């Protein structure tokens, strides 16, 4: 917070007791502002140390770790199954996807196969999660843009309907703890499937209304177009994934690249942006939601009957053979991966998460430089971070 | 003492306060404000003479004050723009240091 305008001393570091001169932070050309960890729009306990020239950002340092919970170390001291509920708490807006990513890694490790019905259920739930996540993100983005909660509450209204479905299926709204190694925990009832299918059919009309309210809004266009550009080369170098990468025009979606689960059976397209600015990142979410609706409709049509668990799967006394596995999938925020190293004991020997939000956050400064404080908040909102995942 | 004399005393004292400020301070903004005060003192005179003068209906004093206010506003705008320009150059606004005609 101190001494922004001062140049380094020409004499280098002087020995002897140094008198720390406390400068009034209100003087000087540059203003250092610590935005967060208690700030309305840092999406949790995230902090940006911002140096401002007027309102223009000349330096931005993201600071995180306020929500560090030792997730990976805890997982190494817990049974494989016991980590499943903890993965809910990584990206708490899309726990179904996170569950699946972890299950994917363990299934690879233990060589389990997943029955067809469970594969479809996983896709249904992952895409519903994508809807939940994107609809939340868009709502929060508009809050950062300065609406008085209206778009956020519309988004939450729809999210609530999906979350209610999760609750009816898994018993919890957000901490679903639904996927199991080799299948899913609960088989949905026909009524549940009918309700979900109805909701998905109604979803496009909500998106249309939402878009007519905001996408063409002149203030929205002025605030987001050309703001926070990210060029594809930079993005690839930094390992950015997910909608943020695709907004920069790079065609990389693990659903197509890896074709995990039954995604190759589905007919969907990957929207790509050309500008890589905040508006493109917003539109990526909207367009992905429309594609997700298509996937969901196809999944509800084709959902087969049958078991939902691999009969080989063991609930108690689960000890995979020694070995390692990396399971990854396209979570709503990007490439979410779990790396597991087994030594044959009930606990993983090494457990590592590749959190997409953390890696997407690394280029925040590049995107924000030269823009104003107001834009920094919006750019942060458009990256879509969840601090549970960033800090782990 | 007549009210006119009181007004004139107010005006002349205000003028002198502005003068002392403009001469004594080295901060350019304050010098500018001192000059503004002197202008205001003159305006007070105009109004006083319009009020107690022989022909208030003509309103010349009022009109003159209006013009003076307009000019003073223009002066303030340009003056403060100059202050900001000076600040950009020498990172302070001490009048004594603004002695170069070239940046």
């Amino acid at each position, binding site marked *: 917070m101190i001494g922004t305008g001062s140049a380094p001393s020409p004499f280098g570091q002087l020995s002897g007791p140094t008198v720390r001169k406390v400068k009034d932070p209100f003087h000087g050309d540059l203003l250092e502002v610590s935005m967060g960890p208690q700030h309305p729009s840092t999406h949790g306990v995230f902090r940006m140390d911002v140096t401002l020239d007027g309102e223009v950002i000349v330096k931005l340092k993201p600071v995180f770790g306020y929500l560090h919970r030792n997730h990976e170390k805890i997982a190494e001291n817990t049974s494989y199954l016991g980590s499943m509920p903890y993965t809910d708490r990584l990206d708490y807006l899309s726990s179904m996807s996170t569950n699946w990513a972890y299950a994917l890694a363990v299934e690879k490790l233990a060589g389990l196969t997943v029955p067809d019905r469970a594969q479809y259920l996983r896709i249904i739930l992952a895409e519903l999660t994508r809807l939940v996540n994107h609809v939340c993100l868009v709502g929060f983005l508009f809050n950062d843009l300065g609406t008085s909660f209206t778009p956020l509450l519309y988004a939450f209204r729809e999210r609530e309907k999906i979350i209610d479905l999760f609750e009816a299926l898994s018993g919890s709204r957000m901490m679903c703890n639904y996927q199991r190694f080799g299948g899913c925990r609960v088989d949905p009832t026909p009524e549940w499937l009918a309700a979900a299918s109805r909701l998905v059919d109604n979803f496009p009309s909500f998106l249309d209304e939402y878009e007519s309210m905001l996408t063409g809004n002149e203030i929205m266009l002025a605030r987001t177009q050309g703001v926070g550009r990210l060029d594809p080369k930079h993005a690839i170098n930094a390992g950015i994934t997910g909608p943020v990468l695709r907004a920069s025009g790079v065609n990389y979606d693990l659903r197509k690249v890896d074709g995990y689960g039954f995604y190759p059976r589905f007919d969907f397209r990957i929207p790509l942006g050309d500008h890589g600015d905040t508006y493109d990142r917003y539109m990526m979410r909207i367009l992905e939601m429309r594609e997700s609706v298509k996937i969901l409709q196809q999944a509800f049509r084709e959902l087969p009957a049958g078991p939902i668990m691999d009969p080989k799967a063991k609930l108690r006394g689960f000890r995979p053979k020694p070995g390692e596995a990396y399971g990854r999938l396209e979570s709503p925020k990007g490439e979410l991966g779990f790396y597991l190293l087994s030594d044959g004991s009930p606990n993983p020997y090494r457990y590592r998460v590749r959190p997409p939000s953390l890696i997407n956050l690394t280029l925040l400064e590049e995107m924000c430089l030269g823009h104003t404080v107001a834009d920094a908040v919006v750019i942060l909102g458009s990256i879509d971070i969840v601090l549970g995942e960033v800090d782990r | 003492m007549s009210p006119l004399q009181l007004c004139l005393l107010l005006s002349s004292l205000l003028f002198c306060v*502005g003068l002392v400020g403009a001469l004594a301070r080295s901060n350019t903004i304050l010098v500018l404000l001192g000059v503004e005060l002197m202008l205001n003192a003159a305006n007070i005179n105009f109004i006083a003479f319009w009020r107690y003068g022989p022909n208030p209906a003509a309103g010349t004093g009022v009109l003159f*004050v209006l013009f003076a206010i307009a000019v003073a506003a223009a002066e303030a705008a340009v003056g403060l*723009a100059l202050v900001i320009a000076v600040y950009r150059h020498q990172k302070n606004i001490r009048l004594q240091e603004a002695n170069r005609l070239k940046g």
Partner: protein
Amino acid sequence: MNLALILISVLILGSAAVALALRNLIHSALLFVGCWAGIAAFYLWAGAEFVAFAQVLIYVGAVSMVVLFAVLLTRQSDAAEPMNPDSFSRFMRALVAGGGVAGILVGAILGTPMDVSTAGPAPTLTVKEIGGQLMGPHAAALLIVGLLLTVALLGAVVIAAVDRPEKSEDAS
């Protein structure tokens, strides 16, 4: 009647003197606002309503904002100006000069007999009359002032503008 005038005078002179003596520029700017408001009160007292409102609008509403803006934009400056012997001697000289002028003026005012009718009611000048005067006999002055203001505005913008290279991708 005179009591009100004296009160207003004390307000004006006091705030002006304190404003010029203070080291905190924001405080002095705000005190100047008080001083200008006092002058507006004087105009009201003298019956020049229109001028009083114009004074408030322009000085309190506009000039003060510009001054505050300038103070904030030159933020580093107000830590400067230490009370060194140089500035002290300048202050003394200024005080002498100001005092001298004040003495001469006060002497002249008090020494001049002014036989004006003090009891007369305040003359009224409606907005319409002022407008008529402005558009009639003083039309030329009005035009010139308009021109002056425009030129001053443009000049101020040009002087204060930053010569930063135009960023093409900046959202405009």
